[in-house]
């Protein structure tokens, strides 16, 4: 009810917003306001969750900080707006947030009919299925007749239906609005299977009473390229957010880290010098200060550092880099050069 009301309010905001607004220059508004308004998950360990001191942490959260560092020169100037799966797009459409960083899958439908644009894929994911080890199920193909818990407002409902239909398996969905409710219902045995993005499953497993009693099945049933999105019609802002993502990747590729970035300022490597703004006017080109990438790396780190600290080997979730490794290391992460 509450979230329906909020959705309703946001929808109304979309309706009455005046003509000047959608195309207004987001960059100017962010600078004027002095803070970036960033839509994140209400709570998904590793991606965006408040820690015990109330600070937001996670992969998506760090992307918000990186954008703030590039645009405002200060990674702390972010207002985090927690959004549920259901209301996230409306929050972006209505202008409540400047950018959406909420483990959100890039699909054609979303890119074309919601008035928003995805800037890229910062996390290659896929939908997984989790079951209790006690069921002795080894493969998704054995799930005929199972009951499956799934979250509304996500891409996962559709994938689930497709997978079971294609494989001629019967199933019963039980659809909840919040991840917490699924977690409770699944643990109580209401469902045999909990399905969502594999990254989400690993994160959610840590919240369970007995994490060892649950396994994620080997089948990945969909492509879930997750990435930041912005409102359509403001190409300057789109370019900025996209190049923040590319700067994070290029920094990792060039070996620039939070630790060595000051020293790297003296580097003679032209790639490094261009990234850090010592050569060329690349920051100006996208409407930012020339040290935009320097600020990102100095205050937040490069892509690999963010990944490791939030969801990777350095975190409790401990997800392997896999497809999210740089293209130079056998992964899919590839950024156009800064030049």
């Amino acid at each position: 009810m509450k979230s329906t009301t909020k959705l309703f309010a946001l929808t109304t905001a979309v309706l009455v917003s005046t003509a000047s607004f959608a195309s207004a220059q987001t960059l100017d508004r962010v600078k004027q306001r002095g803070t970036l308004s960033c839509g994140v998950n209400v709570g998904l360990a590793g991606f965006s969750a408040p820690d015990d001191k109330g600070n937001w942490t996670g992969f998506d959260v760090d992307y918000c900080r990186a954008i703030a560092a590039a645009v405002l020169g200060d990674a702390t100037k972010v207002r985090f707006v927690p959004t549920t799966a259901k209301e996230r797009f409306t929050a972006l459409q209505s202008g409540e947030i400047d950018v959406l960083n909420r483990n959100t899958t890039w699909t054609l439908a979303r890119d074309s009919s919601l008035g928003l644009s995805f800037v890229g894929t910062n996390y290659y994911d896929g939908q997984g299925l989790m079951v209790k080890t006690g069921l002795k199920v080894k493969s998704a193909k054995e799930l005929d007749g199972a009951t499956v818990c799934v979250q509304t407002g996500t891409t996962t409902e559709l994938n689930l239906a497709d997978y079971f239909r294609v494989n001629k398996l019967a199933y019963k969905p039980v659809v909840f609005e919040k991840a917490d409710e699924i977690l409770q219902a699944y643990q109580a045995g209401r469902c045999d299977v909990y399905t969502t993005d594999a990254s989400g499953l690993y994160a959610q497993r840590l919240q369970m009473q007995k994490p060892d009693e649950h396994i994620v099945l080997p089948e990945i049933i969909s492509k879930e390229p997750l990435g930041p999105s912005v409102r359509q019609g403001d190409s300057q802002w789109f370019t900025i957010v996209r190049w923040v993502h590319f700067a994070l990747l290029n920094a990792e590729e060039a070996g620039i880290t939070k630790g060595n970035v000051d020293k790297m300022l003296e580097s003679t490597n032209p790639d490094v010098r261009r990234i850090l703004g010592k050569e060329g006017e690349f920051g100006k080109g996208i409407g930012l200060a020339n040290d935009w990438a320097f600020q990102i790396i100095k205050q937040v780190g490069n892509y690999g550092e963010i990944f490791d600290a939030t969801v990777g080997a350095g975190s409790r979730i401990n997800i392997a880099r896999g497809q999210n490794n740089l293209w130079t290391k056998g992964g899919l992460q590839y950024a156009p050069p800064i030049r």
Partner: protein
Amino acid sequence: MTATVQSPSPGPIAPPAKPNLLYRPEFRQAVYQILLVIALIIGFWAIAHNVAVNLARQNIASGFGFWTRTAGFDISQTLIEFDNQSTYGKAFWAGLMNTLLVAGLGIIFATILGFLVGIGRLSSNWLIAKLATAYVEILRNLPLLLQLFFWYFAVLKNLPGPRESISLPGGASLNVRGLYLPAPVPESGFGYVLAAFGIGILTSIAIAMWSKRRQLATGQRFPVLWTSLALIFLLPGAVYLVLGQPLGFEYPALRGFNFQGGMAVQPEFMALLVGLSTYTASFIAEIVRAGIAGVPRGQREAANAIGLSNGLTMRLVIIPQALRIIIPPLTSQYLNLAKNSSLAVAIGYPDFVSVFTGTVLNQTGQAVEVILLTMLVFLTISLLTSAFMNWFNKHIALVER
């Protein structure tokens, strides 16, 4: 003292000069009404136009073209045939039926329970009165969402898994996945039993009408209740036995992960129905109590004085007058119940809001259209309920003399 007052113009009295059209109240009122209507139309048109322009400019899809597109998702419980190849339009109806189902049953249960508790509060039996009071005070003072969570997560989720189901008499089983009941399977000849049942009901109605007329004419009473019960239950029962029990049962059995076969009642549905009914019943109880208390004491004394028993006093004198007080606020409670059913999504029941305003909205991205339809649906449900209750109220309202 006499004074002669000369009338200035003794001529024929002129009819009062017709006031200028502009000063005539009826005309002014009509003009104001018309202006208001025009302003409203322009206002609505401006909003609609603004919305269309805004959506187009922001490149957000609009229109109702999605209605006939394939939905692609499944719904766990539907009253109409629905699978992932059905359209969004069908999903709309499937969700709506689920809402109507839980709201309709909820209204029936809440009314029965509410009347019992309300009358219980007025009982002269100390224990019953106190229990009824405790019921009302506890249930109406806790947030409904909390109560739904209680029923769903605290009560139903603590039931054993499918493999350790609790067996109930008659081949039913209860577990964390729901209540599994044997499904009746009619065999040849069962139609006669149904026919006997129908005849029983029709004759009962006829007898009731006849007995009422006879009572009005002669004052003699007839045991309508007992005759009707006998006709409605014993008659088909006898036919059933004579024809050799032409009704089989399909029993639910554990196969694979879950019970298969039989009839399944989802725990989400049970929790929502129980939560909505018991919560609303606490308000209805208060309304019933107020209604009964609102009938002047003299009415009861008068009824007793002419020798009516307590039961008849209640049925023939108190309740009819109390209903006049009860029905209008009762209608509001029905509307509340229907609207509160939209909390379903919190406990996973596929009601209208969960299916349409949830999944369909998300997959189509057409928030404006979907929310608009959602408002229309709830408005329609509410207006129809009120219309029915108003009709009912008029129908039973006492004709005052």
